[in-house]
């Protein structure tokens, strides 16, 4: 019974093998001459100021978290969206509840102001 799945297995394995060959080939063929500047971070020709892992503004982190939450929401929507005509009203109500909950989350983040970047009061030098 498993014979029908044999071609898929062959396809996947060939793909993996070809990908690995390209990746690992350069380990054997490529010249390896590490030196101090090659391993240092690229700072468009200048010396880096501070390390690469400096602490930076928290607004980036808020945006990243935002993205993950709503991305997962879309993932959950897909299976329902494909078959929602046959699934009837029950699942429709359940999905709407799910969406409303996330909508409240979205409104909350709007009010907290994580989305608009120039929320910070700005007095540009020429306006003052």
């Amino acid at each position: 019974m498993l014979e029908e799945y044999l071609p898929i297995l062959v396809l996947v394995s060939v793909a993996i093998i070809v990908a690995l060959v390209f990746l690992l080939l350069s380990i054997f063929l490529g010249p390896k001459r590490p030196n101090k500047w090659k391993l240092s971070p690229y700072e468009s020709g200048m010396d880096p100021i501070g390390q690469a892992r400096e602490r930076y503004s928290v607004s980036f982190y808020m945006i990243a978290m935002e993205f993950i939450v709503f991305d997962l929401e879309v993932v959950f929507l897909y299976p329902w969206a494909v078959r929602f005509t046959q699934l009837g009203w029950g699942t429709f109500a359940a999905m709407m509840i799910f969406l409303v909950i996330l909508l409240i989350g979205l409104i909350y983040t709007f009010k907290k102001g994580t989305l608009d970047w120039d929320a910070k009061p700005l007095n540009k030098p020429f306006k003052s």
Partner: protein
Amino acid sequence: MNISEPHQAIINDLQQKYPDKVLDVKEHAGATVIVRVNRDVVHDVLETLYNDHHFIYLLQVFGTDRFTSENRFEVIYHIFSLRDQVRIFVKTWLEEDNLVLPTTTDLWKAANWQEREVYDMFGVQFTGHPDLRRMFMPEDFEYYPLRKEFPPLGIPGSIQLPSTTPDTEED
């Protein structure tokens, strides 16, 4: 010496305000008018020109090395008045041993970089300048390149070249 009428009005006004400080007026081809003033009154002259004659556009500040024994250096301010479309050069002579001039960044913001360039090329110190650093050459360069005694091909070893062997630890 056919100085055009608006230039003459400004020069007369300056001569009244600073009786013996306006030392001489030169003119060439009817358009370039150069007024030389005494060094300790140059900031006030520029201020009067700025306030009374609307010279609010500073185009360039540059220096010259006259290579003479006394008052060797020259600093020239090139300003333009928008209201009566007049272009004037205000020049001062500086002694070699005290190359100090008051800065004009309080009048024009444009003077910031221009004065840094004159400092970089001739070594003229501008007192009160927000951050007087070299404009073009790196700070580690100790000479003033546009002075006449500086050789045009530079002094070998005055600026270091990068090391061509990256692995050796630099000092």
